[in-house]
Each structure stands twice: as structure tokens, then as C-alpha cells.
């Protein structure tokens, strides 16, 4: 309870004292090291088949799943029968108690199917508009497959877990008379081994910390007690738009908040100046226009004819259909913020980047003002050289992996979670994030329902090293929790809400990975 009298006449609610302007505060910095896990070659072929992704994923995750399974089920007796291990799905014999590992495939009538598209001669695929693939009427079936064959999974044990296409599981049970596999128990790969803190930038650590200490000494000379720890700000779904200005004021306040111009000196000193980095997790630009505020008709798959008869379709570039205002607003926002704060930018579903996972960085041409803070484009001979210093304004891939202040961070723009969400009945998005970590796959539904690049050599979606912080952007609401693994891994999961929906910013402490949220209200 706060009353008006308490606050009046104090702090900033008084006459200017006439003293000299206060000294500018120095913003703290954190060590930042992006990893190029999801970077694609500039010249990449698209001719190859998608099957390799599944093969690579199975090859990479199966050993872990099998290790977990044999640890759990080795020597288990069930009804007087010993559980046997079976190498391949095809080797499952009817009536024998066994366990086998493979890839889950969900057969769902509502799920878009490439075979159906081909058979109906639809060659232009549009993003699906279906909210859920899950039908709930029992038409969905779960398959387990590997390179030998496929078997249908049944049983109540399946109800306790999220199941989506592409996750690797081990199942224990028997094949029944219908040729279905009755699942008694089911296991995932669980969390991958977690690297030590500072594992990537180990060499730099000493020096950087030295610097930090010096800086802290400088800025906290008046306050020798334990300094407040540093933070990073996470935001997503800024959706700069020129059609919908309902949250334009909130965006302004967000900028003023992050710049530290708002609020009073003590907050600026103790909180804002410790926000060391802003991570924008997708959907920075809104593509909806004033004319059709609803989703663009191209997304409507039910009436594919619509696409072919737009009213005034021009061949090639149609300058009248392009609206530069949202990206200009976003660029202004960034160029205001960048002088005091480094920014990491992940593309999202609405952003001008490629649509398929992993999304590559938004082109610097979108940021005529802020791109001077980016790292220089690589040309000629040093094209392949690894950048020793990331850009101050780092536009990165989605998903993105990096190390911030020693913590391994994995983040996405949200498409992966949104797609997993469509498979299951639950609304528990944090649970799905957890499941992704336990599946060791950040985008299991790629390439089935989540568009993806046809990888040949490597399957980067497999989580090889467990992150300390896993965030997913553009979610309907905020959520966070910490999950623990059997080897002492601990992962902080954060569902970053869309700013355009919730007007919320998430702050993460870089020492404890504790989370705070700041809601911005303009009324």
C-alpha cells in the first residue's frame, strides 16, 4: 500500500536543485561468445533429401537412449519373462518382451502431409493454418521407426509423455496380436552432459573478469558493499508495426527503460545499468498491414485457389505492396539503444529471414542505421575466418547457441515450440521445453512439420551439450522453471512472452540465472 503523500516531494518530485548534472553511469558488460552451431553456408544446395536428417538424428541420439534404457531395463523380469534388447524395429517378435529404440512418427489426419500434397498436385506449399494437429478422437497413431521398419505403438504409458514426430525414444513392451507394440515403459535420452561454466571462453575468463572487477570498482566506489549482479534482458515479439499502434507507447517506454532514461537515479544505478545485453527472440517486425489486419491470405491453405488470383499482382518487385515503416521503426529503436547496450537479434516467424529452420540472420540491409554496430561483412579471403569478436549488434541465427558470462545459452524464436505444441493436447509449454531438452533435440518436428534445411552432414538440432539457459521467444505468456538432470545438470527454462501481447520484458541474472519480469503499462 502506497499513498500519494508518501511519494510526493521526494526524489524526482521536487524542484531541480540547480546542481550540476549527475555523472553518466557506466553500463556493465558481460562476456559474450556466440557459437556458430546453426550457421549455414551461403551457397547451400537444396537438392538433397530429408531422410538424412532422421538418420543422423537417430545415429546421434540412439546411443544415449540405449544407454539409458539398458541401465533401466537390463535384467528386468516381467511376469517371469526377462526383457530382451532388440536391435531393430523389424526384429520385434510377437509375444516377446523386449525393448527397442527408434524415432517417433506421429500419423495424424490433421497434420500437413507432403504425400497428400503431391497426390493432389499441390506444388506450392503454404504454412499450415491448423492450430492443432492433435485431433483427440483417437485417429492419431504413434509409430516407432528406424531404418529397418515401422511399428505402431499403443498403450497407456504413452499418455504420460509428450510425443511428437522426430523424437528418439526407447520403448519396452510386447507386440500384440494386431501387430501393435504394447508399450509398458518409455524412456528418453534425458539431458545431455552439461559443460562447465566458462567452458567456451575459458582462456578469456581471467582477463575479462579482471576487467569487470576494475569496472565495478570504478562504478561502485561510493558503495563498497556487494554489487548487484548483472542481468541480461530478454524480449520477443516487439512487432513494430505501422498499422497497430496500440502498444507504441509501451515500446517507447521499453526503450526509455532499457536506456536508463526513465526512473530515478537509484534504480538507474542499481538496476538498469546492470542490464548488460538485450536479446530479441524473434518477431521484431509485424507484417500485418492496415488493409488486412488478419493474417495474410497466403497462409490460408484451405482455399489454395485464392493465392492464384490476387487483384493487382505485379510481376517482380511491387513497391506498393512493401511497407518499409515497421523495419524503419525497428531500426530506429535499435540505433537508439545500441550506443549503450549490445543487442543480440534472433529472427522469428514474422521477420524478413528465410522461413525454414535454422533461420539465418536478418540481412544487415534491413538496418541502415544500426548496422554500423554489426561486425563487418566478410569478404574474399577471410570469408571463412572465424570472427574473433562478435558484433556489438549481433544478428544471429534462430535457433542460436552462445555463451553469456560463462553460461551456455540456447534460444529460439519460438517456431519449434509452437510446432511441438500443435502435436499435443497439453498447454504446458514449459513442459514441452523440458521435453525438448530431455529428447536432446531443439526442433524434433523439423523437417516433418517445421520447415527445415535438408541437412546432409550434420544434424545441428541435436543438443550435444546441455545449456544452462534455454529460452524460447514469442510465447503467449511468461513462464520459467528449472529442471535437473541425473548428472547434476540444471537448466533454466524461460518462455519469453510476446511483447506485443503481454508488454513484458524478462531479466535474467547472469550469476544465479534467476529471473525477473518487468511489465510495462501505459494507460
Amino acid at each position, binding site marked *: 500500500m502506497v499513498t500519494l503523500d508518501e511519494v510526493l516531494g521526494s526524489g524526482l518530485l521536487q524542484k531541480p536543485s540547480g546542481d550540476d548534472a549527475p555523472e553518466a553511469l557506466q553500463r556493465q558488460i558481460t562476456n559474450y561468445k556466440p557459437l556458430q552451431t546453426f550457421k549455414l553456408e551461403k551457397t547451400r544446395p537444396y537438392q538433397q533429401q530429408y531422410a538424412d536428417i532422421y538418420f543422423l538424428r537417430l545415429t546421434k541420439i540412439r546411443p544415449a537412449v540405449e544407454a539409458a534404457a539398458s541401465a533401466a531395463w537390463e535384467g528386468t523380469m516381467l511376469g517371469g519373462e526377462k526383457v530382451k534388447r532388440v536391435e531393430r524395429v523389424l526384429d520385434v517378435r510377437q509375444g516377446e518382451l523386449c525393448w527397442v529404440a527408434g524415432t517417433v512418427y506421429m500419423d495424424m489426419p490433421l497434420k500437413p502431409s507432403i504425400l497428400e500434397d503431391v497426390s493432389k498436385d499441390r506444388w506450392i506449399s503454404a504454412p499450415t493454418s491448423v492450430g492443432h494437429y492433435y485431433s483427440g478422437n483417437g485417429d492419431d497413431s504413434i509409430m516407432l521407426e528406424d531404418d529397418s521398419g515401422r511399428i505402431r505403438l499403443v498403450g497407456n504409458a504413452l499418455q504420460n509423455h509428450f510425443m511428437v514426430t522426430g523424437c528418439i525414444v526407447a520403448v519396452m513392451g510386447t507386440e500384440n496380436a494386431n501387430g501393435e507394440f504394447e508399450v509398458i515403459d518409455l524412456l528418453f535420452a534425458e539431458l545431455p552432459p552439461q559443460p562447465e561454466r566458462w567452458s567456451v571462453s575459458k582462456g578469456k575468463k581471467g582477463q575479462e573478469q579482471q576487467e569487470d572487477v576494475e569496472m565495478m570498482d570504478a562504478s561502485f566506489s561510493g558503495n563498497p558493499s556487494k554489487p548487484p549482479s548483472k542481468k541480461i534482458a530478454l524480449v520477443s515479439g516487439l512487432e513494430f508495426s505501422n498499422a497497430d499502434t496500440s502498444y507504441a507507447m509501451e515500446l517507447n517506454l521499453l526503450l526509455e527503460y532499457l536506456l536508463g532514461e526513465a526512473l*530515478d537515479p537509484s534504480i538507474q544505478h542499481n538496476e538498469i545499468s546492470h542490464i548488460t545485453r538485450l536479446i530479441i527472440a524473434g518477431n521484431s517486425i509485424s507484417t500485418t498491414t492496415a488493409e488486412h489486419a488478419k493474417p495474410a491470405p497466403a497462409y490460408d491453405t484451405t482455399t489454395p485457389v485464392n493465392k492464384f488470383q490476387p487483384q493487382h499482382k505485379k510481376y517482380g518487385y511491387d513497391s506498393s505492396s512493401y511497407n518499409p515503416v515497421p523495419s524503419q521503426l525497428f531500426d530506429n529503436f535499435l540505433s537508439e539503444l545500441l550506443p549503450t547496450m*549490445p543487442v543480440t537479434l534472433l529472427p522469428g516467424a514474422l521477420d524478413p529471414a528465410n522461413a525454414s529452420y535454422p533461420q539465418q540472420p536478418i540481412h544487415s540491409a534491413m538496418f541502415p542505421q544500426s548496422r554500423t554496430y554489426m561486425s563487418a561483412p566478410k569478404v574474399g579471403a577471410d570469408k571463412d575466418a572465424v570472427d574473433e569478436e562478435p558484433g556489438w549488434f549481433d544478428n544471429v541465427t534462430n535457433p542460436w547457441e552462445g555463451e553469456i558470462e560463462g553460461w551456455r545459452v540456447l534460444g529460439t524464436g519460438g517456431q519449434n515450440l509452437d510446432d511441438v505444441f500443435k502435436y499435443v493436447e497439453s498447454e504446458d509449454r514449459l513442459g514441452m521445453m523440458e521435453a525438448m531438452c530431455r529428447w536432446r533435440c531443439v526442433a524434433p518436428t523439423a523437417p516433418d512439420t517445421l520447415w527445415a534445411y535438408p541437412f546432409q552432414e550434420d544434424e545441428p538440432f541435436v543438443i550435444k551439450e546441455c545449456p544452462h539457459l534455454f529460452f524460447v521467444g514469442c510465447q503467449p505468456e511468461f513462464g520459467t522453471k528449472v529442471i535437473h538432470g541425473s548428472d547434476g545438470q540444471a537448466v533454466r527454462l524461460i518462455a519469453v512472452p510476446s511483447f506485443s501481447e503481454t508488454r513484458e520484458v524478462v531479466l535474467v541474472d547472469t550469476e544465479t540465472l534467476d529471473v525477473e519480469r518487468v*511489465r510495462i503499462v501505459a494507460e
Partner: protein
Amino acid sequence: MEDYKTYLAENVLSEDKVVTYRLLSRALRVHPNVAKQMLYDFYKSQNTKKPGSVFATYLLYGIKKSVQHQNGNAMDIDLPSSLPDADPVDNDDVPSYTLALIQEDRLADVLKDYETIASIHVYSVGPHPAKDLTLLVDAAQSALAIKDDAKKPRPRTIVNSHVRRRERKGVGLKVAAAAVPVKQEPKTKAAPTKTAPAKPTPAPALAAPKPKEESKSATPATEPEAPAAATKKNAPPLKRNASAASGIMQAFSKAASLPKKAKPSEKSTPATEDTPVLSDDGEDDDDVPLPRPGAASQRKSRKQREEELRRMMEEDEDEEMEEEADSPAPEEEEEEPVVEEPPVKAEAAKEEEKEIVTTSGDGRRRGKRRVMKKKQIMDDQGYLVTIQEPAWESFSEDEAPPASKPKPKVASSAPPAAAGKAKKPAPKGQGNIMSFFSKK
């Protein structure tokens, strides 16, 4: 220090504007925190003079009671469905701050909802209650519009000494240099009217970048590719003119083309010139026989040479000719009236002819002409190979109808067709490059 009062009185009272602390801070170059106090002072003093004359909005930052609890509960409901070993405490623990923009009349009510207020200050002062947030948005935008100036940098609350900007290395120079021709395009378009039409005024375009290079920072970084293409575009015509047309030729073409081109639109002329050059760029600039107006005697020997060349390049040129025919270069104009060679459209003419007229009188001509004949042979590996080889074929006008009736069949009625076609473009000032190779 007191000038803020006059500034605020001017803007808020006289001009009916909303002034935010940021706008004040940037306009007067004072620290934002001081600007907040100024706003408060102004608001206070104005309202003691005359209550209700100005209205303020406040910015609050603190922990709200209700929100915290509601959210905590909501999360609790969600949590049970998640996997068992989640920390159940987590969501409750998340401190939730609220940054709120409140109008003064609601301030007292809103404050009751807060557990603690970490900060409160005046956000803006305006002549009316701020019913519409767009006014504030506009004020915020106008604050952004006030740029830093070097002499009196605006005070910042938080600075970052580690900020890095991109350094322009080698690329930057090129970019700066290349960026200029793009900007100058309107100028280069206008310039050719004064000089020869084929000259895209290379001198200013190349000279201009130099001062720009020195003031690198002023030039916005531009994509290297686009300007590079632009310079390329400009370069070839320059090269061609310099090398191909010697002084006398240049003079001639200038003299010839200027009067002849009755009044070509000044903008389109260089443009049409540029397009063929661009399309030819890099592959066949050398192959294109340069039409060189000159004395008639010279022309003949040259024509023979060209014919030699052409024979070698039959295939390639078929395609080129087509392109050229669509957008002929103006230099050829002066030859038009005397030509009679058929414009052999490649797609129609599988065979392409060249003729040597032995007799030419009263509309009848006899002679031989060169024809490309297709031959299909089986090579030693058993593949069928189609080759074209030139062959001579004698012809006589007898077989053909009078020259005035052009026929679609090119093979038999080529010369008449040529005559018909060649005459047509002449008045227009459009030439066909094929005409160049013909015999008189």
C-alpha cells in the same frame, strides 16, 4: 537554469504541445533526471498559479500487489501438468515489476495497488489530460528526432565505454566511392545531352567520390554489390568509345547523330544506349563489329573483314543480332538509306545468307548466296550430330516475285524483304545492325 520555464511555457501553454522529460532533456541538453524535476516544478508552479492549467502523467516503477498474486496462482495451476521433478517454487519466486504510465487523476488510485514504489517521476506535462496516448507517442518521436550535435552532446544517463562500431576497412573505401555514382544518376542522365550521347560523363562520376572518401563517416554504408554494378554499367560504354572511336569518328558520330535524332527524349537516349551495353557486358563486347561510319571505299574493305569475322561466329551472332535488332545503336543510322540486306531473324532463318550478286539490272538479280545448310551425320560413336556448314547456292531473281512484295519465306525472297524492311526503319531513325553487313 530558468530557461526551462520559458521553454515549457512556450511549448505547453502557447503551442499546446505535450512535453516529455526526454524531449525537454534533448531540447535543452540537460540530464534526463534534471528534466524530470523541471517538469515537476513547472507543473507545480503552474497549478498553484491557476489550477487545472497543465496536466501531468507519471511514470511509476514498483511491485504491484495484485498482479504478483494473480500470476503466481495462474502459474501454480499450470505447473502440476508438467513433469514431476520441476521446481515447484520457481514461478512464485519470480519478482514482477511494473513500469506504468499513469495520468495524474488516477495516480492516487493506482498507487494503492502497489506494494512498493521504487521510483516515481513526472513523465510528461501537457495542456490537456492525456487521454490519447498517440500524443505522447508523437512527443516521444519528436524527442528522437532531436539529434546529437557534436558541440553539445546530450547528457546520457548510462553510457557504455565498450561500444564498438564497425570500422571501415578496404571495403568501406570502395563502398564510399561506389555509392556516389548511384546518387548522381539523375545528373549523369541529364549530362549526355550536352556531349555525345554515348558518353555517360565518366569524369564527374569518378571525380566525385574523392571528397566523399575523405568524409567517410558521413556517407552511409551502402551495399557493395549494387554500386559496383552501377560503376560497371557506366564503365563499358566509356571504354568502347575511347577505344573504338578515334577522334575523327567521335566527331563524326557526334555530328551525325545529333542532327539526325530529331528530338529523342533526353532521358531515354542514354538509357537505350546503356541497355545493350549492359547485356553484352563482359561476353561479347569485342565480338560486336563496331559500326564505323566512314568513306564508302573504306566501308567495303571493312565489310569484307566483318564478313569474315561473321562467318566464324555465325552461331553466336545469330543471337546477338536479335538483341541488337531490338535496340539498335544510334550510330548506325546514317547507313540506313543504302542498305538492302535482309534482317535475318535467327529463329526463322535456319539458314543465313550472304549473297554475291553477279548481275543486277531492271529488278532482276542473279548470283550466288551463302547458305547455312544443316547436315545430320552419324559420328564414329554412333551418335547423330547435326552440324551447320556454309554452302554456296546460286539464285536468280527470276524465281522471286518483284521486289515490292515482301514474302514471309525468307529463303527465297530475302532481298526484297530486306529492301522493304530496311526502308521502314530509316525515317524513324532506327537502324538494324544487320544492315551494316550488307552489300551495297
